[in-house]
């Protein structure tokens, strides 16, 4: 039970860590008691991972103290952390796919426990905490949930007193998540301290005894999630930013893109959209925490993932659900993926060749199958002039451009074609502030000319700035779309963390 006078298992005092100019952690005070399930909440980039890496020994703090059971310690490596009794379950599994479950576990235990003894111990611990595993199965056959159980087992075999779970439910099905919660509660009841990192308020409210909320690298509050309302936690996470509904001087025209009953499934994501219409002259924002189906949404709209029903996606009256990217481009729909190198542009090809890639269906670019160099040069120079792309020569490989300049180039490449529909995933991800402003302005200018634009982004400020309407993607469900000025920060936070239904919206 959480008792204020109890000796904390781990306590950090004024931890600071910066990477260059970015302050990832500033004066973080954080304490976990034994038998406590402590939630660490915050948006992407709030500093949760950095703090956990410091506790796990992967990174060293610039400043500040760490106390383990009241004694100051320095955690110089993951090995030291493990020896002290800190176990970590990472979000991305570091498993050897070709090896069996038992071998994977044996590998990470420093002592050489092997063979039947290890199998017995694995099954013992698995049984105690209700984690079902088959030690002899090769890992590549296992589902995400089963893999996570191995990671947890791997940590538990070392008898940790503090177990850190980094976004454990992000890859799990709801059933698997429920099973995990049973295990976590059992662990806590046996005296283990648990740090539970999550975006999902609903889970945190159901599972955790305490919560620390980070924003911008600093602690903005602690609370008891059971008694505190989801609204106030969401507000702490997102901050009290104002939603300024900028009056956009745009005429909203006719529907140019409509989606009906689109259901798709990829390896790790699902997507369900019942009905959505995008009008000419509007920017439609899709918000959401990473990993909630953004990649699949983009792939579905661009045609990289096709749907079986042609009518599930309609562009300007043409059913295109079963068509590929180039066929959709013929209907003046253009796409800008999130990953610049390798998805939007070929790293080793020069800028003119990269300009050709999305112009293949353009009759001006090729004649009788022969590429028109003249057209490409003109096109490339236009893009470079319009978007101020700084480059070391248009004959140099795309990978030599800086992130911001390459992003301006790939955005410009599609915009230069004055598309009827533009789908953008993370338009300003990893881009310097000035380039980001330019890209946003260009997007809005394009909308003002009558195009329909769909922006998928995890940058809430950006979406609030440029969108006319906004919807939240959570677990593959695109929520109800409403004009930006009808949203509140609380409602957005609740929708993004999956704890809202539409009734909550003011």
């Amino acid at each position, binding site marked *: 039970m959480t008792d204020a006078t109890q000796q904390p298992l781990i306590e950090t005092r004024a931890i600071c860590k910066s990477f260059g100019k970015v302050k990832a952690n500033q004066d973080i005070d954080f304490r976990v008691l034994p038998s406590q399930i402590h939630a660490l909440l915050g948006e992407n980039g709030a500093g949760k991972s950095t703090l956990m890496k410091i506790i796990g020994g992967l990174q060293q703090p610039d400043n500040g103290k760490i106390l383990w059971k009241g004694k100051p310690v320095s955690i110089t490596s993951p090995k030291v952390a493990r020896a002290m009794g800190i176990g970590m379950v990472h979000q991305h599994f570091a498993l*050897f796919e070709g090896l069996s479950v038992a071998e994977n576990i044996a590998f990470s235990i420093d002592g050489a426990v092997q063979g039947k003894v290890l199998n017995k111990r694995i099954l013992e611990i698995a049984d105690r905490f209700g984690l079902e595993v088959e030690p002899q199965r*090769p890992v590549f056959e296992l589902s995400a949930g089963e893999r996570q159980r191995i990671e947890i087992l791997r940590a538990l075999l070392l008898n940790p007193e503090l177990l850190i779970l980094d976004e454990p439910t992000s890859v799990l099905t709801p059933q698997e998540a429920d099973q995990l919660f049973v295990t976590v509660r059992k662990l806590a009841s046996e005296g283990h301290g648990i740090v539970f990192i999550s975006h999902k308020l609903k889970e945190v409210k159901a599972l955790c005894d305490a919560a620390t909320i980070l924003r911008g690298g600093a602690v903005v509050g602690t609370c008891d999630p059971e008694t505190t309302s989801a609204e106030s936690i969401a507000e702490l996470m997102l901050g009290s930013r104002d939603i300024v509904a900028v009056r956009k001087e745009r005429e909203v025209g006719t529907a140019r893109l409509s989606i009906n009953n689109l259901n798709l499934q990829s390896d790790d994501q699902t997507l369900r959209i019942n009905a959505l219409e995008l009008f000419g002259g509007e920017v439609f924002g899709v918000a959401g925490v990473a990993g909630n189906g953004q990649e699949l949404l983009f792939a579905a709209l661009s045609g990289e993932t096709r749907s079986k029903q042609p009518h599930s996606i309609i562009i300007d009256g043409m059913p295109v659900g079963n068509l590929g990217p180039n066929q959709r481009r013929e209907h003046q729909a253009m796409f800008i993926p999130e990953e610049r190198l390798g998805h939007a542009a070929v790293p080793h090809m020069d800028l003119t060749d990269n300009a050709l890639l999305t112009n293949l269906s353009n009759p001006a670019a090729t004649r009788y199958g022969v590429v028109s160099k003249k057209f490409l040069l003109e096109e490339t120079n236009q893009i470079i002039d319009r978007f101020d792309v700084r480059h070391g020569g248009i004959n140099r490989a795309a990978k030599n451009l800086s992130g911001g300049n390459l992003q301006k180039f790939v955005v410009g490449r599609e915009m230069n074609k004055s598309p009827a529909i533009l789908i953008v995933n993370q338009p300003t991800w990893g881009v310097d502030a000035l380039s980001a402003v330019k890209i946003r302005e260009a997007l809005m200018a394009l909308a003002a000319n009558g195009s329909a634009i769909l922006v998928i982004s995890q940058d809430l400020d950006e979406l609030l700035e440029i969108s006319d309407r906004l919807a939240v993607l959570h677990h593959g469900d695109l929520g109800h779309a409403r004009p930006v000025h009808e949203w509140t920060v609380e409602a957005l936070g609740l929708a993004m963390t999956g704890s809202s239904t539409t009734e909550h919206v003011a």
Partner: protein
Amino acid sequence: MTPETITFLMKLLGAAILLATPLLLAALGELVVEKSGVLNLGVEGMMLIGALFGYIAAYNLQTINCLEELIPGFCQKEERFFTLTDYLMALCAAALAGALLAAVFGFLTQGLRSNHVAVGLGLSILGAGLSNSLGSNFFGVNYTSVQVADHPAVFGQDLLVWFSLLAVPAIWYVLQRTRTGLVIRAVGENHDSAYALGYNVPKIRFYCILFGGAMAGLAGAFIVLVHVDWKEGVTVGKGWLALALILFGTWKPLRVLCGAYIFGLLWASELRFDNLFPSWQLEWKTALTMAPYVFTILVLVIISRNPRMIRQSAPASLGKLFNPPS
């Protein structure tokens, strides 16, 4: 069975052992190399170099006793003598030579991070060329025209035959049941994760490459010391066949053993078709010489249809360059 059939079958088996043992030795060495995630296509070159140096060592170690000397300095009838100790030393020389050439590969691929395929192919060409020139008069003797005495057998077979057969369970045990084997497989499976867990990937791989080179050297030595005399290109592509054999055996030592002996038997019977089917037409006999190769292709096709088996045994990082995160 008539006594003739039994004799014939025994002879066939004897020939099969002679043909299969070098294949098995080279394939087992390369199996360990590939399990650590390295694709060394230089097996043929390492076998040739091993063969030459094994032969040179054996030639210089053998004792020649002159039995009849009519004119002084010109021996009419001589006795060549080669003890088991000499044989072991010759094998060491062969293994060392193979490992040395492998060390070149290891330095280029692990130290300088060059492409495995390019360096491996180069190694095969280098080994062939180097063994040709070193074997003809480089050391003052033209080894293509000299002979080496026979050496004593152990329990009716050559020492290397027993060694190769024992190496099968030994390598299986080390790879599957010991921590060393686990580390080797982990490095071959996912070098980034293994590195993150604190294992020195290039070093582990380098040792595996040395082992593969030594085994290839032994394989070459077996050919020239037990089977035929040294000549240029004496391995006749057995190094390449050993590479195919690993795929054939899906990286499992026991299957590699079976594969090697199936090859050996098919090959040996191919040479004896005349005896086997004296009444057959020549065309049929010629067609049957294809048997080992047709068989290989069939098995490879069947194996590649089972992705689960491949996934479980094939090292996922095979042939991929490892760049430690800086």
